[in-house]
């Protein structure tokens, strides 16, 4: 069960990452990044319905769909029990648990990437193609920034939870 024997890459995780304080900071950072992304979406919507918006283009439900996809993807990815991803080498797991976990993980990453791609699509089709000027174009840019931040938040949370696993493992032995 030595991790160093069957690792895939030539480099290892740096030592300072295996620290519970780093893990805590990572989880807080992940929440902050998600909040920042969410409020970029809300900011675009609020600006679109305020009196400052000179154009008659508004943020509709279409603009929210990529954000919803990204948030669902984040939920799916971080709901998976991480130890099940390589469960096939253990005896207690049933048949194909790792396969199922990887499939659900794939769905989660597909939702996340689909959210980012969808936000770019919305920006191009709704705001870039009709050649709107900047205050209107900001709705599209904010959408892309928001989905990128949700993706970053997911990765930070994922890495933090992997730190937790190593930490738990070291102490359990």
């Amino acid at each position, binding site marked *: 069960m030595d991790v160093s024997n069957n690792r895939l890459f030539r480099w290892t995780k740096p030592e300072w990452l295996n620290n519970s304080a780093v893990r*805590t900071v990572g989880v*807080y950072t*992940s*929440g*902050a990044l998600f*909040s920042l992304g969410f*409020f970029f979406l809300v*900011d675009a919507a*609020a*600006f679109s319905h305020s009196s400052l918006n000179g154009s008659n283009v508004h943020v509709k439900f279409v603009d929210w769909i990529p954000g919803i996809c990204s948030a669902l993807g984040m939920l799916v990815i971080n709901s998976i029990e991480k130890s099940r991803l390589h469960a096939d080498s253990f005896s207690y797991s049933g048949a194909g648990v790792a396969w199922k976990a990887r499939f659900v993980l794939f769905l989660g990453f597909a939702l996340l990437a689909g959210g980012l791609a969808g936000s770019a699509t919305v920006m191009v089709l709704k705001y870039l193609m009709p050649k709107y000027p900047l205050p209107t174009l900001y709705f599209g840019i904010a959408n892309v920034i928001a989905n990128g931040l949700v993706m970053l938040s997911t990765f930070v949370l994922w890495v933090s939870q992997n730190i937790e696993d190593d930490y738990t493992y070291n102490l359990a032995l």
Partner: protein
Amino acid sequence: MAAGLKTIIALSFVLAIGFLLVILSSALWHNFLPLIVVATYVIAPLPNWICSRCANPDDFMDSAGNGIVDFGRFLTGFLVLMGIALPALLAHSGAIEIPAMVMSIIGGLLIYGTIISFSMFFQEQEEF
């Protein structure tokens, strides 16, 4: 004990300044939207406290309990950044003025810092 008393007095002073800034930011422009920041920062430590009661962090073998703690931390991080992002959002969409935004952000950070320092003091007292 005298040092603890001094810190408590200083903390309450900072808390009063924070509340003053937030109330001023809303009362000066007769627009009471920045008061939401106070609610955000008061709610912010709550998920952490509730979730740390739900799970036992000393139990290293139980991996199911740490998820709740992480979820509480995630929510706290979300709410803390919400306290900064909400006034910026309101100012950007023209609901409040820019000076009101600055005052409510600074006041909110002072209030949250006070809450955090107070909780740290109580934790130190509980451990003995």
